[in-house]
């Protein structure tokens, strides 16, 4: 495989870019693998990469029912941050943050990791209290984060509406400077390329239609391209975790909802960072192409259609205009939806299951993208060792029975 660099780019420029090889080669499914990963999204490709690289498991395959990275990897708003409240969350998301930092170099693929900073706005005292609690927890957990007062917010992101007469005045914010955005497609391609180089089979257009289970143990899977024998199967199918789970006879604490996002037409750089507001339910960044990338809240209803209700988009844009009144004349260029698997505690599942050799990674809700490297890393570890490591341990299925939830949505809003 050609190594990517400025020099190889120049060299290829002189010969019409004829020397670049494929990032990965489409494989035919083999009759058997040591492990199979269902789902060729970011998390799935990362899992395969770390299984091969860190655990030496190279006789493995990713099976993807459509095209690689075509699910939520293709649909998310690419926000990266790790300023989560609880220890368990800080551990996994900050592990991801550390991996993101060197990922482009490690994978020799520019994933355009832009550490432009993430602001979480506080609009009232209750939010300020919650955010300060979080920023303090971050600090003590060794997670980079800081508190900005209103004046500092205005300096960091001068286009935010700072009027005190606003319905949602901005009174402060947390800032994670290492947070930011990256290029979603590139991450999937980079992991796939690196996994492929280590010998992983990447099989697209291959839909899993059933799991083969004998005596409580997984023995293989049925796919639209034939039967594959394998002692280990990991499901990494954001949006369809329950569907795959049902093939193993599992009912899961998951509901699948539409989550919508949109981009504006491209404009010259105007928003220097990522701005998030829980109160008005908006988040907004600007892509390298210049589009404002805006995420909406989930639709209330369950659906597998990748389409939500347009009023959600309307409310989202109204919320963005509350924060950024200067955007009113810009145009909505595209909007779309994905399917997110929501857990009751807004935290993921990385877990063994009652079926031996069948592992679940899912339930990431609206925030899975940022965890991609750590999620793959932890799942690879779980698949290889059949035991969760310290990072994955809090995210078992058992927590719904014991009550040990990781309630990241926490923070009920208002009171007396």
């Amino acid at each position, binding site marked *: 495989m050609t190594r990517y660099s400025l020099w190889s780019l120049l060299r290829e420029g002189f010969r019409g870019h004829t020397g670049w090889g494929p990032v990965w080669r489409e494989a035919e499914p083999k009759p058997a693998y040591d492990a199979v990963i269902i789902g060729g999204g970011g998390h799935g490709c990362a899992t395969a990469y770390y299984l091969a690289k860190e655990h030496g498991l190279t006789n493995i395959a990713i099976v993807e029912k459509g095209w690689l990275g075509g699910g939520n990897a293709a649909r998310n708003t690419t926000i990266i941050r790790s300023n989560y409240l609880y220890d368990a969350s800080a551990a996994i998301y900050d592990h991801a943050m550390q991996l993101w930092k060197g990922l482009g170099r490690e994978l020799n693929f520019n994933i355009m990791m832009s550490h432009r900073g993430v602001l979480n706005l506080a609009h009232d005292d209750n939010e300020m209290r919650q955010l300060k609690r979080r920023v303090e927890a971050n600090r003590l957990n*060794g997670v980079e984060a800081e508190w900005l007062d209103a004046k500092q917010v205005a300096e960091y992101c001068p286009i935010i509406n700072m009027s005190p007469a606003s319905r949602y005045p901005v009174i402060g914010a947390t800032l994670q400077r290492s947070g930011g955005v990256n290029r979603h497609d590139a991450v999937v391609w980079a992991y796939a390329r690196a996994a492929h180089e280590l010998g992983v089979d990447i099989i697209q257009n291959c839909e899993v239609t059933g799991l083969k289970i004998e005596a409580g143990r997984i023995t293989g899977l049925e796919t639209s391209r034939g039967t594959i024998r394998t002692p280990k199967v990991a499901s990494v199918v954001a949006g369809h975790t329950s569907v795959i789970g049902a093939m193993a006879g599992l009912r899961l604490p998951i509901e699948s909802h539409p989550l919508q996002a949109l981009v504006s037409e491209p404009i010259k750089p105007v928003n220097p960072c990522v701005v998030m507001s829980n109160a008005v339910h908006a988040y907004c960044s600007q892509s390298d192409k210049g589009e404002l990338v805006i995420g909406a809240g989930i639709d209330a209803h369950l659906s597998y259609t990748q389409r939500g209700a347009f009023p959600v988009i309307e409310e989202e844009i109204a919320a963005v205009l509350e924060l950024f009144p200067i955007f009113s*004349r810009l145009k909505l260029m595209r909007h779309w939806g994905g399917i997110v698997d929501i857990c009751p505690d807004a935290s993921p599942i990385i877990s063994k299951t009652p079926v031996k050799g069948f592992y679940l990674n899912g339930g990431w809700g609206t925030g899975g993208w940022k965890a991609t490297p750590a999620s793959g890393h932890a799942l690879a570890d779980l698949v290889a060792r059949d035991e969760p490591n310290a990072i994955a341990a809090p995210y078992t299925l058992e927590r719904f029975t014991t009550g040990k939830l990781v309630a990241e949505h926490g923070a009920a809003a208002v009171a007396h």
Partner: protein
Amino acid sequence: MSAQPARLSQNRLSQGGLIDRTQPITFSFDGKRYQGFAGDTLASALLANGVHHVARSFKYHRPRGFMGAGPEDPGALVRIGSDPATMVVNQRATEVELHEGLEAFPQNCWPSLRFDIGVVNDLMHRFLPAGFYYKTFMGPPGSWMFFEPFIRRAAGLGPAPSAPDPARYEHMNRHCEVLVIGSGPAGLAAARQAARSGARVILAEESAACGGRIFAEAEGDALIEGLAPRAWCTRVLEELADHPDVTLLTRTSASGYYAQNWLTLFENCTDHLPPSQAGNLPRHRLWRVRAQQVVLATGAIERPLVFNGNDRPGIMLASAARTWLHRYGVRPGENAVIFANNDDAWRSAFDLHDVGARIAAIIDTRPDPAPAHREAAQARGIPVRLGATIVATRGRRRIRSIDVAAFDAGGVTGKPERIACDLLCVSGGWSPNVALFSQSGGSLRHDEALASFVPDEARQEVVPVGACAGAFSLEEAVSGGREAGRAAAQAAGFVASATDPAAGETRDGAPPYRVAPAWELPSNRPKSRIRAFVDHQNDVTAKDLHLAVREGYGAVEHAKRYTTTGMGTDQGKTVGVNAIGVLSGVLDKPIGEIGVTTFRPPWKPISFGAVAGQHVGALFHPRRTTAMHDWHVANGAVFEIVGDWLRARVYRQPGEDFEAALQRECRAARNAIGVLDASTLGKIDIRGKDARVFLNRIYSNAWMKLEPGRCRYGLMTNEDGMVFDDGVTACLGDDHFHMTTTTGGAARVLAWLEEYHQTEWPDLEVFMTSVTEQWAVASICGPRAPELAADLFDDIDADPERFPFMSHASGHIDGVPARVFRVSFTGEISYEINVPASYGLWLWRTLMERGAPYGITPYGTEGMHLLRAEKGFIIVGQETDGTLTPVDLGMGWAVKKNADFIGKRSLTRSDTARDDRLQLVGLLTADPAFVIPEGSQIIASAREQSPRTPMIGHVTSSYFSPTLGRSIALALVAGGHGRMGERIHVARAGADPVPATITGTDFLAGLKDAS
């Protein structure tokens, strides 16, 4: 007004088109003044003035002109206006209607359109292929952070406005039986037929005038129902105007097609007017239409051809050239070449010729164009080259010449011949405009004969007609439209009367449309020099698609994303099928197997303002006010918003700061009387013989024995066992209760009660009705409250002995009915006085007046928070965050043993039953003057550790207590209930941890113990 025609600019025809030559309009572009006419677009007016180069492309900053004449144009993007609040960027010049004083500017170029430094990208293009950025800039740490700003600055087209938009926008909801999108022959026929049935019809036309290509083509000997097409159009429009239930919307594009035939239409109401004429209309309107039936008459979009050098100003779609001629009376060039793979484009040659342009050549990739065309060309003396292609073009800011050569499957065969020209009309055939059909969920199939994708199976109540359905003849369009309109109305329950006049003949003025696909045309130039653009906005060439395939991005979505094909503001309207065609060539697979990329809404970019509609600014979210609001405003209140309610936080007296006001208010409440506007508390009237049983299942504590006349505090938990609301409920009668909830929880709690009643326990006889706003509530508290209360009530004995704590009474104040609850959230003797809300302001004033002798002092929510913290009462949402049980909050007494309630079962789960969970305690800092910041984390050690410090809890509430004369705090600490008296530390950023001692939560009890 003078009817004297104004002087015509160089390329303006003396007659024809939908422009008014008696109404000249002065406008400017790039600082230079020009003249156009009413009815012009910016593009047509510039072309009339000979201006072709108006923009720069996204990546290579190549000169761009007008390739299309409508919404499909990819390149001619301009900025309108220069005011920081009202300028609009990335506007398609082909859609900007001219008005007096219009100022347009080029964008994405520096220092000027003519000399753009960004052209350096073009010079470097061989090093900047698709996805080049993925392969570099990831070197040493921070290198991307270094390069990214440069890339960002180069990207992005126009700049954002820098001041808030003063314009208004609106939503408009509509229901109709038949929605027709597009007003070409098919759409007009459909709308008319549906209208005749009496059905409600909405006809949406994207441009300023109906008719579609009727006004963009020469009429020739075409007929529609026996009339010349334009006359027919006029007659149909007259008929539609007579139907009261027809809504004809021009300047309105269907932007999105959603579930259950709900569509959004985007209407431009005033952008085409000078600001002085906009009147009271909104700038844009978003129509939200629920249609029983939809007829899609969205026409077709002509494709360019993919050949070397196909992107210079002066190269345009053949159909666009005809649009300029016939709709705008503009001759886009003097010396034209036509280059096509189909019969339709030949008309451009003839029409241009017939208005005096020289046609240097017609080049057709096919050997066998329509014989009628060949004859017509011969008759006009137009040279024709068959089986040939253009291998190169010349001309920087406008095309100057082309090189044409014969070719076959193996490549270029003949010697190129150079032909000079100033206009190149290209046509790669027509693609039905299936974007909306696809958005509706309908499937597409590839039609070999049309070399395009056409609608296949519909998934909603929608029918594509005319060119949108791949039916390109007038006869098919009109008859298809008629039938679709009739059928749609009928399906919606409306039948046209039998008097529908018989239609006359419909026929085309040109030979039938035939096309032979030519996706990627060869050139004799060295491969490295060939640049055949597929996406003219994002600068994607055929070579980029080859590269994508070579690198493994052969799946159509991968290729699109890797090269950014079709992802510009034109949504790839002229790109899609060409890109798929090129891919099919590279992959050697039939087009039908390549598939299409998703058509994501909107059809074309629509303003954020229109999407948000009216619901922005002061109308974004409501601000609810209580009956006493005016008094609060007049008396120095500082407000906060809780659950959309504006609540007074403190009342500042002149010269007083926030903290001083707070301390004064709290002292008054403890020493004399404080009064709080508590109107916002949620209130629910609960009635029925099973009301008590119901409450017992809802609340965690017991309710079976509460007597009429008494009140009780209750906690509500969800099925997970976690507290989500609390409040006091009074027993008004054995089957009648008055429940109160938190302000923010009012709606949630009522919904919760209804949900459980209706879905789990419908057998219980109980009704719930919200009475939150029926009552205005003033809560008086403090040692002298009984004295004021005794003065106040007509018929209630206010003596705390006879009107004890946690009881209630109904009576009157000066004849006004009142419900009074002896409940307290401060620890002081309190009377919560409820009167009908219209008396709220009167009650408040009465209290202030009659309470004055006792020192009555209004206090706000901040004081309430402080006073209750002194007493150790929780605030749901401040002490709690959805993860705490009643036991965690030190209210194990509120967990009844002998009966079930919602969430009870969860309390005994292994983790929920742990005794080292976070538990609510009081904290007293070693330094009594130090007020801990709320949200602070609690650690066990006196020093922070590295790299991380274990946390054992956090501070939820913290104040300086005027009653205790020191700071107090409430906190959640792991196993806190068993750690009374223990010393912990409060971590601080940038300072040493502060020591504090764990105490009980009732600080007033502590005070009494001490005294």
